């Protein structure tokens, strides 16, 4: 069974808090607020009920789903969901600690401005339906293989996951700009030589500049 999620608006960004996350930060007007999510999660425990008997481990929970469903696909999906939840817990915990260091170093408004700048750029790409596949093929850019990247390129992400998850106040475009900068020179050179191969994620060794890209 999937762990519940709690989408709580904090300081202009929504954060997902999962059971087990120790802290979540909100930065607002120069004030750093640490929230103990035990308050948010208080409904998972009751003094009248033995928590051991009602809170099976994740592994047991997965086994229970498997036993009840008898469906192998369900078993695999549960395992993936458990893995994702564990990753998100780690990200939440470590991300909060990083946020403190960023605020101390650059000030409380800094990351909000950075996120705002990026979100202006990425929002249209997650909402519009225009596909970039033709452009990629024309320019002989290797097509993505993952389902998420394919959905982004094809402009079908919103229909696949609507509404957009609130925590997507993210900086996903930042690594993308760095990767684009590296790979574009190689793509241009290989287009000239007619030797474009491989996939976008494997081209990390190359550096270069592609002056046509202007993120606005």
């Amino acid at each position, binding site marked *: 069974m999937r762990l519940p999620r709690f989408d709580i608006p904090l300081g202009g960004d929504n954060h997902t808090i999962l059971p087990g996350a120790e802290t979540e930060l909100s930065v607002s007007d120069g004030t750093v607020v640490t929230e103990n999510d035990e308050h948010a999660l208080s409904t998972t425990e009751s003094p009248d009920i033995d928590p051991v008997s009602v809170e099976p481990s994740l592994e047991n929970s997965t086994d229970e789903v498997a036993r009840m469903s008898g469906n192998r696909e369900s078993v695999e999906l549960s395992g*993936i969901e458990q893995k994702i939840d564990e990753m998100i817990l780690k990200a939440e915990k470590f991300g909060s600690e990083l946020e403190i260091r960023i605020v101390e170093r650059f000030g409380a408004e800094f990351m909000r401005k950075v996120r705002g700048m990026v979100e202006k750029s*990425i929002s249209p790409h997650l909402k519009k339906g225009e596909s*970039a596949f033709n452009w990629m093929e024309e320019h002989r850019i290797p097509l*993505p293989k993952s389902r998420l990247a394919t959905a*982004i390129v094809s402009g079908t992400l919103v229909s696949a996951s609507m509404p957009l998850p609130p925590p997507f106040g993210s900086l996903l475009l930042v690594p993308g700009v760095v990767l684009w900068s590296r790979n574009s020179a190689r793509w241009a050179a290989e287009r000239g030589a007619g030797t474009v191969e491989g996939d976008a994620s494997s081209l990390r060794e190359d550096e270069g500049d592609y002056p046509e*890209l202007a993120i606005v």
Partner: protein
Amino acid sequence: MTNDIKERIALAMSAEKIVDLLGVDAASLDDQLLLTGKFADIVTKRLLLRVPEERTEEVRQALAVEGVTLESFLDTIRTLVPDFDRAFDEEMEWTAALFRGEAKER
């Protein structure tokens, strides 16, 4: 229009790389979107923290410039972080290890 498409491709490249590093292609797209966003958030913050302490003000100023774009801001960060490309690779790999439970926080 062309820049619009390139932005979309850059976004997809980021997602592709992170999904590949984490091995989560089988997860739901909602979960992947959530996870890749948090991943990128951590990588970006750790890159910013690699800017030498004495050059902190230059980062603030770069963000305060009128008409600043993500690309121009990253150009500044690239000049301020020593050996930026190597640092970027290290942070991507380290963050992936963190998500997989294989890295110590540092």
